[in-house]
């Protein structure tokens, strides 16, 4: 006897009514989502198409290239592009490592230790975080100039800037650490672990999403930075990152010959970040929601 025969007919009817309602609301939701993704994706598709166009290096009045080719990508090698790309990659990698270590240590400290001025410190950082970072740019430039870390030497200077204030981004991971029961720390400490071992062996393995989220955001900052990098490198190609470098091609005298190469550069910049996100998206979402909701 099939199971379906046991269903109450009125029940089935009620379900059908609900599913009709569901269908309508789903349709609306999907339409909105489709429109949103078109708006979002259009510029990217546009840039990708431009980057494969070989018939003209200047802007044209149509979207789909008439002649396709990889010239723009190949020609990038004849410019400073790969130098900038390497600069950016080094900075993003160093920042990702440095910032993650600092943020995690900071969060663990604020979550677990009770010390004088703990609350004061947290409040102070909250207020400090309300000021736009741009405010510190002039003094940052002066300081880095004295250390000889501007213009051509901007890379180490920028790494310093990116990492310097990273402790203030402790909120999400502290929120997550707060949800890990303190008795786990206590048990581990009694089992013979030092505070550092507790963090590395007990807390972090449980906090994988948060760690990945922290690494991703730390990597993304320098990767997409324009303002600070522009300011510290001061028009010196050797010290530029890829965003500043590509932007320099948009000056009136260069744009005619480099517009499509600019697009090709943009595509290459987007590739590693896209791959990273596609692989780690799951953790990223868990990280944001896990830390935020319970924190």
């Amino acid at each position, binding site marked *: 006897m099939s199971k379906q025969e046991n269903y109450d007919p009125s029940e089935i009817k009620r379900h059908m009514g609900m599913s009709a309602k569901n269908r309508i609301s789903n349709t609306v939701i999907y339409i909105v989502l489709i429109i949103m993704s078109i708006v979002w994706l259009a510029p990217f598709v546009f840039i990708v198409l431009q980057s494969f166009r070989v018939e003209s290096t200047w802007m044209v009045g149509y979207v789909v290239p008439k002649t396709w080719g990889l010239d723009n990508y190949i020609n990038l090698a004849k410019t400073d592009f790969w130098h900038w790309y390497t600069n950016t990659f080094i900075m993003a990698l160093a920042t990702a490592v440095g910032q993650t270590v600092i943020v995690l240590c900071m969060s663990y400290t604020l979550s677990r230790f009770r010390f004088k001025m703990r609350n004061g410190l947290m409040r102070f950082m909250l207020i400090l975080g309300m000021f736009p970072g741009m405010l510190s740019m002039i003094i940052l430039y002066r300081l880095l100039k004295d250390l000889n870390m501007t213009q051509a030497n901007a890379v180490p200077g920028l790494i310093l800037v990116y990492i310097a204030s990273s402790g203030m981004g402790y909120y999400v991971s502290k929120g997550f650490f707060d949800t890990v029961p303190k008795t*786990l720390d206590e*048990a581990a400490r009694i*089992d013979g*672990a030092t505070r550092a071992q507790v963090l590395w062996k007990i807390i972090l393995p449980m906090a994988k999403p948060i760690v990945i989220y922290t690494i991703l955001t730390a990597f993304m900052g320098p990767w997409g930075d324009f303002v600070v990098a522009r300011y510290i490198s001061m028009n010196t190609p050797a010290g530029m990152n890829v965003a500043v470098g590509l932007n320099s091609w948009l000056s009136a005298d260069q744009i005619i010959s480099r517009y499509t190469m600019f697009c090709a550069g943009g595509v290459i910049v987007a590739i590693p970040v896209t791959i990273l996100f596609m692989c780690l998206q799951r953790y990223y979402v868990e990280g944001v929601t896990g830390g935020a909701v319970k924190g």
Partner: protein
Amino acid sequence: MASVVLKNVVKIYDNKVTAVHDFNLNIRDKEFVVFVGPSGCGKSTTLRMIAGLEEISGGTVEIDGEVVNDLQPKDRHIAMVFQNYALYPHMTVYDNMAFPLRIQKMPEDEIYERVTHAAEILGITDYLLRKPRALSGGQRQRVAIGRAMVRDSKVFLMDEPLSNLDAKLRNQMRAEIILLRKRLDTTFIYVTHDQTEAMTLGDRIVIMKDGYIMQVGSPGDVFYHPGNLFVAEFIGAPKMNTFKAELVKEDGEYYVKAFGSKLIADGKRGEDLKAKGVPGQQIILGVRPEHMFLASDGDPNAIECTLEVSEMMGSELHLHAITDDGTRLIVRVQTINLTPEQRKSLEIGKRIRVTFEGKVMHFFDAETEENILYPYIPEEV
């Protein structure tokens, strides 16, 4: 294996609340000591100070003759079992139990030996490769005990280890802890709020209230000679009946006046009263429910009361009654001894008459609530 000595230990929290006052205790080598008391009495705080999880605000804690006040938990050579098990959720049972040994950098062969040995004793060999979340409460607690067992720790601390288990499992685990204690033969400090656990497990029981030690003694001591009214009421279930009464000395003999009845203090109690020459005074009289019984019809000194609730516990009845002046009392009656007439008379709302023997009376000072005959004298540390 080690002694633990607490001298004048004080805990004051940051918010100026004093959780533990001047705590003095000498826990001997291989002794099983239970801290018991109502919640908020400072028993867990004291244990955590011994473990090093809580800072000691004053006084000293010595383990094996060494003052450990400023030592980190890891340097105190202790093992601890927590109420909520505190297993590492991302590790398997095996890894959980191996964790303290890996931290010590013990060779993996030896770790394997120790963990499998402990698992065998605790009957968790089949679960070694599971994660804690796939285990039941009882199994988790076994793993937690196993993790504490694999190390050669000087002192074994347990913070309400059975409180999260259901009643049946709790009884079973209690018996297993007694066996474990025999096997490990080390110093145990056990915290609980359950007086049954305290009585069954401890060599000595430390009864605490509001951060003070009320009495330290063997289960027999605290049951038969409670140092004060608090201990008398805390130990034993259902709790001791207490009445306002007057101790009268007449012609060198003692009797107690309560509810218009005259109850003669005879037996050992009478002798002790005479030996100490206790003067007549207002007292609080204590009698345990199991020491009371239904009076025979002719007894002129029986206490008249009205039966309010009758709880059938199987082998015995718990009779909750109220006297004419509003004092409530409980009587435990063995059902096997009841005649059919008596059974019939034990209906709710009926008058019953209860009494007790002179030798089971406890006398407490009406003001200080101290035991008049057997006051608790703290041991010197």
